[in-house]
């Protein structure tokens, strides 16, 4: 079997085959790490798995991530819908306008994620029951509590999408949609933060985010200064303060960290 001949053949109808396979570099590395004899014997099988990954029968991780995102979007939509409906909660007209806009985006995200999941032959999760009053009893009567939770949800959303980007690296379409949602969540976050007289960006581990202790997990790890191969990003160029260095980079949250935050409202 001549693997390169096969790839050349594939290139005739898929010019991007090299790019697809390159993103599967680790799969090739695995091939190479087998003993030569074993490698030859295992070639058809291993090759099959390379192509399956490259051409995405393996949508299960993508679907899992999309459902994970859908749960967060359900939470946000539900929160703003209820908040806007709560009498006497959001009275200022500019604030209402902002939350109506945000609610509309979250609702659009819910719809888009459902459509995307279905288009990949997956099953969208149905909307869970949320309990916003579980740990924040006055969430829909005290405007300041509502604002605090809105900030926490938006900053969590930004971090949650960011944490899954790398897992979508082999599906360009879904990755791009996720990025396009991610930056909208960041815009929301900045606005809500400023409604609370906070800066639009996160400095330190929530040092400038003004949330109660119970909501601190939202900002865990935001004080990270190790970026890529740079051990301390404060030291690049002529040097930067910790506030600038942490404010300039938003940090991801893992699925587990996000689930822990969401569980405060379930």
């Amino acid at each position: 079997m001549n693997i390169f001949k096969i790839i050349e053949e594939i290139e005739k109808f898929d010019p991007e085959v090299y790019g697809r396979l390159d993103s599967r570099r680790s799969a090739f590395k695995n091939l190479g790490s087998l003993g030569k004899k074993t490698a030859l014997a295992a070639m058809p099988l291993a090759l099959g798995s390379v192509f399956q990954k490259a051409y995405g029968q393996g949508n299960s991780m993508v679907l899992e991530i999309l459902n994970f995102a859908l749960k967060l979007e359900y939470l946000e939509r539900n929160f703003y819908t209820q908040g806007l409906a709560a009498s006497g909660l959001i009275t200022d007209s500019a604030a209402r306008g902002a939350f109506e806009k945000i609610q509309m985006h979250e609702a659009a995200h819910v719809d888009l994620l459902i459509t995307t999941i279905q288009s990949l032959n997956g099953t969208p999760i149905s909307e869970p029951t949320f309990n916003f009053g579980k740990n924040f009893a006055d969430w829909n009567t005290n405007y300041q509590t509502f604002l605090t939770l809105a900030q926490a949800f938006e900053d969590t959303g930004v971090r949650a999408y960011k944490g899954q980007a790398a897992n979508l690296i082999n599906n360009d379409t879904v990755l791009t949609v996720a990025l396009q949602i991610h930056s909208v969540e960041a815009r929301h976050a900045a606005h809500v933060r400023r409604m609370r007289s906070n800066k639009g960006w996160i400095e330190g581990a929530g040092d400038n985010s003004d949330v109660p202790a119970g909501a601190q997990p939202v900002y865990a790890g935001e004080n990270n200064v190790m970026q890529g191969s740079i051990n301390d990003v404060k030291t690049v160029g002529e040097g930067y303060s910790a506030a600038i260095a942490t404010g300039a980079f938003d940090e991801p949250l893992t699925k587990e960290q996000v689930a822990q935050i969401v569980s405060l409202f379930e």
Partner: protein
Amino acid sequence: MEKPTQKQGQQDKAGTGIVVPQRRMFLRYAGATALATTLLLTTSCDDDDDETMPTDPETVDLGSGDTGILNYAYALEQLEAAFYAEVVAKSLGMFSQTEQQIMQDLKGHEGIHRDFLKAALGNAAIPDLEVDFSTINFNDKNNILATARTFEDLGVAAYNGAGQYLENAGFLTLAGKIVSVEARHAAVIRDLISNGTFSDTADNMGLDPAMMPADVLQAAAPFIKNKISANNLPK
């Protein structure tokens, strides 16, 4: 600002476009259509037997693969950093105290993005770009804010569009760490211009724009003196 230096180029003397197997692979990988006679290698080019091409000295080639995408981001961060440095140097007095803090933060954030990318790229980094701010009136607050909005929204759309071209998961996450901060900037600047317009860039599906490098560079071109070539970027 430092004068940009020409990247070392390699000429294909035979004119076939195929010099060494690695290059053939590289060309195919980069999706280069013209089998280039002016292919610029920005990485691992250490055989200097070949002639240096006397091409337009102002053209900066971003390179290929992930390096090319990171250089593309580096170019945009250079532009933004230079802009806010200028705003803080020339125009701070026009802004309220809160706004002054915002401008200082933006200068810092874009500065550290630029310096971080330069450090991460190492030898593969493009040279310092020469900016052209002659069309910006630094005595006019509205003009400054409008320019800031253009740069920030453009930055967000650029990162959103380029993420799909990154092959290294670590780089993708890093780009994600930066783009959401750009989006925060964009939202704050938009609100300074007109409160409540923070996310008006989103379409009816609630999605921010994602722009391709060629379109982004065209929009940025009036503010950068160097010609920037994205020809070898992944497509």
